[in-house]
């Protein structure tokens, strides 16, 4: 699968020569492993508020990194000066860091084997590079979005933002692998804000269009050709906001939930995606992002959820935000099972973990190493972790019809989960009361709270393929120094029985 081909201005950069110099110097210093990563990541951010451009920013991160194993310890260094001298110097610094680290490294670093890919390339599928579209055209579209919303009396203020990214990477290692890759992603977000003066409340309604690994066609293309139906979404947002402002406050208690993919993707991200990162389960993130309840000793036995729960890890999904050809350790990316029929059967791995757990994936990494910039060391990051639909499953309406007293949840908003991924609490954009299998208007002040295995154990049914949506995020944080990663999560609409609902106003003591 390919997009527009790798940007010629990236190919003109001297990364191959710098790689040869840096890897050569590392080899001279006696390393047992060395890899070189050269990146250019371009960002453009546009921000419109109430029909006016608030700000634009073009930025790029360009540089290279050398990572070595020397004396059984990791060493890493990076720089931005693109000269032979600097490549040599950065390699020397990486070895020096490893020397300092070796005295405190009690478990020698070993990497899982991986075939050598001598000179390969990959580009993500998209039609129009958003960074090549004139800024004025993009700003005009966002201004139009906010003006359409503000044409309605209920909308006091409207904002629109667009982040665009084009990421180029070159990877080389002493084993002989050379990969050159390019991918494009973008994240639009539109919000309408309003107030009900009589009730003394304000609220907002944000678009549910997910961030995607697509080009500009996502904003202006036909819905049947990968474009989002912005006309439809913008047209309904003011009325949805007005209804939300008028809606009654929820009565706290236990409800059945039908959760739309625009909300469920985030619950998957937090309670499955992070929980099945093997580095967390092994303690590597214990000081910061946390560990996992899904410990390795429970592989093959942990009842993660109900039998209708099937979750895959996939770094090859078309338009996925975590999709790539080879990861940042030169591993060809893959797809695999994480939860099968409700039981934990797999983890996300990098090469260190693949070596430690030889019984997983035949002792091979499944391609989950990623660094968000040339200045950061690759760590195990999330694949596109997705809940699979039931091939014969019902529509969203069919799931709602099964509920006597419940709530239908659409869109994400607030999220929080504990450091072992047990206890979570989420809100959303819209909560609809379900009475006798039918929607009965919106509710306000709703949050759902559960324990991960209880929640997924309560999943009675998943929708059919026509309910499946690939959601995701640009801002998944992890590691020290902190890194962010983009990741997609696909899922169908799903039905959960007996979930705790909080009234957020009561939680605030009102």
């Amino acid at each position, binding site marked *: 699968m390919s997009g527009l081909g790798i940007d010629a201005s990236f190919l003109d950069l001297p990364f191959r020569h710098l790689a040869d110099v840096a890897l050569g110097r590392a080899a001279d210093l006696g390393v047992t492993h060395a890899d070189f990563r050269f990146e250019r990541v371009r960002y453009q*951010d546009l*921000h419109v*508020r109430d029909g006016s*451009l608030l*700000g*634009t920013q*073009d930025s*790029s*991160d*360009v*540089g290279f990194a050398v990572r070595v194993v020397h004396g059984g*310890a*990791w*060493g*890493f*260094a*990076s720089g*931005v000066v693109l000269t032979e001298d600097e490549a040599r110097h950065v390699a020397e610094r*990486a070895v*020096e860091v*490893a020397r*300092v*680290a070796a*005295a*405190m*490294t*009690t*478990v020698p670093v070993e990497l899982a084997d991986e075939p050598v890919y001598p000179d390969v390339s990959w580009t993500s599928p998209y039609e129009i590079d958003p960074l090549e579209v*004139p*800024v*004025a055209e993009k*700003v005009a579209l966002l201004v139009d979005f906010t003006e359409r919303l503000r044409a309605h009396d209920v909308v006091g203020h409207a904002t629109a933002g667009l982040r665009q990214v084009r990421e180029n990477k070159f990877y080389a290692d002493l084993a002989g692998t050379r990969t050159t890759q390019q991918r494009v992603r973008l994240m639009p977000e539109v919000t309408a*804000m309003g107030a009900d003066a009589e009730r003394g409340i*304000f609220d907002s309604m944000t678009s549910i269009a997910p961030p995607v690994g697509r080009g500009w066609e996502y904003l202006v293309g036909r819905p049947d050709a990968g474009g989002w139906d912005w006309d439809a979404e913008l047209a309904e947002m003011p009325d949805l906001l007005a209804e939300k402002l008028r809606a009654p406050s929820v009565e706290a208690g236990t409800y059945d939930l039908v959760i739309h993919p625009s909300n469920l993707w985030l619950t998957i991200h937090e309670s499955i995606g992070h929980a099945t990162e093997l580095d967390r389960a*092994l*303690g590597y993130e*214990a*000081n*910061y992002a946390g560990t996992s*309840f899904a410990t390795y000793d429970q592989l093959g036995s942990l009842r993660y959820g109900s039998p209708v729960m099937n979750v895959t890890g996939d770094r090859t999904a078309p338009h996925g935000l975590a999709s790539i050809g080879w990861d940042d350790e030169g591993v060809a990316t893959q797809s695999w099972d994480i939860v099968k029929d409700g039981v934990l059967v797999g983890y996300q791995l990098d090469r260190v973990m693949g070596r430690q757990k030889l019984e997983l994936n035949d002792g091979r990494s499944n391609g989950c190493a990623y660094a968000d910039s040339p*200045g950061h060391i690759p760590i195990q990051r999330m694949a596109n972790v997705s809940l699979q639909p039931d091939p014969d499953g019902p529509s969203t309406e069919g799931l709602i019809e099964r509920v006597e007293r419940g709530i239908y949840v659409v869109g994400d908003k*607030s*999220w*929080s989960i*504990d*450091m072992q991924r*047990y*206890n979570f*609490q989420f809100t959303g954009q819209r909560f609809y009361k379900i009475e006798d299998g039918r929607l009965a208007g919106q509710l306000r002040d709703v*949050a759902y*709270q559960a*324990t991960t295995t209880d929640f997924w154990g309560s999943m009675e049914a998943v929708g059919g393929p026509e309910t499946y949506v690939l959601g995701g995020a640009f801002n998944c944080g992890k590691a020290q*120094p902190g890194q962010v990663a983009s990741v997609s999560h696909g899922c169908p609409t799903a039905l959960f029985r007996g979930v*705790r609902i*909080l009234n*957020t*106003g009561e*939680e*605030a*003591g009102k």
Partner: protein
Amino acid sequence: MTTSPTPQELVERALAASRSDDAVVIVRTTSSANLRWANNTLTTNGEMSGVQVSVLAFDRRADGVAVGSVTSAASDLAQVLALVELADTAARAADVADDAADLVDGVAAPDWAEPPARTSIGVYDAVAPALGTAFGTAGGGGRVLYGFVDHEVATVYVGSTTGLRLRHVQPTGHWACTAKPTSLDQSAWVGGATRDFADVDPVAFEAELTRRLGWGSRRVDLPAGRYDTVLPPTSTADLMIYLLWISGALDAHDGQSVWSRPGGGTRVGEQVAAPGVRLHSAPAYPGLEAVPFVHTTASSETSSVFDNGLPIVPTDWIRDGVLTSLLTSRHSARVTDLPVNPAPDNLVLDVAGGAGTTEDLVAGTERGLLVTSLWYIRVVDPQSMLLTGLTRDGVYLVEGGEITGLVTNFRFNESPVELLNRFSHAGATELSFSREWGDYFSRTATPALRIPDFNMSSVSQAQ
């Protein structure tokens, strides 16, 4: 052999090359080194350096000023001149900016000609061997350590066609360590900020972690509910940083934050916290020295590219319980009719009469909880500033002024605004380090607070 141009040369050449009516150039050099460990062994370690150049081009027209902003890693003149070209082009293509204002005037600061400051892996010359000792002690005692030390020295140079030549060196360091017994059935955490690591002793913090794990020899299960709760300065910092971040004047003025006055306008001038509460920032605050001028590459609700070089002055956000200031650029200050108060890089909470330490507040608690660490804090409801989050790495039962056991973790739902009204006791303000946000906002000074009815919404099984 060629040498790389200095940051000052990059600034001057970029300003000279710009064909726009005005330009601002920001060069930020960084140098950092870190060590990370888990399971009593080092994991990922590194030493990084970078030079980031931002060129802001201003195109003046009859109907206003348009801005082009381009930032990139760059280290030679050709790269910087390419950035200038991109910024000039972007400015010509842009619409006029709403926040247009006169650029800040200035002259060269006395230290303008000084080179960038740097750090290296050598900053850990004393810490690294002590860390090795701590690993040995912990391993021998049936404990496992996980942690991180990071030191960064950033030097920022700001130059403009209106004469501004400013330089600031910002050392930022922090350390944190989590300990668990080999059974992994409990956890303790300590951490702090530092400017140079001269004051960080891994042997000492390993001993403190051992002491805390010892408190877990007795386990107590408690249900969700409201508890008399002692928050140490680190947890107070977690909540106050969020309070600062949501204090944008424009959002408040537009009726979208807890600082919005029902019916329009902001709550500036209202009593929003208990008398004696003072939340403030000052670039020169001892131990929390922070950049004293604006340097920003993009305009937002709380910042403006036209304000580059504007002094960040000491500001009271809340004084004697009264909301006195909100985050403003010159533009949003005009819109909201409030004083200009750019975003600071430090934050201090003082409570009049506050005295003593966390331990002193614990000693005065008949029955309650000591929460040592908060985590995953997010806004649930912006209108009430309701936050949710969790305790982690050590919640302890206090009985008769003594710590008597380890309690399960909880999810909380609370508003920091409410807490500043409801606390019953406050300690003395001390330098602190936010558990969740300290990696990004490390310059805080806060007291321990005792909250009589902290809302623990549900139990978390996490250990």
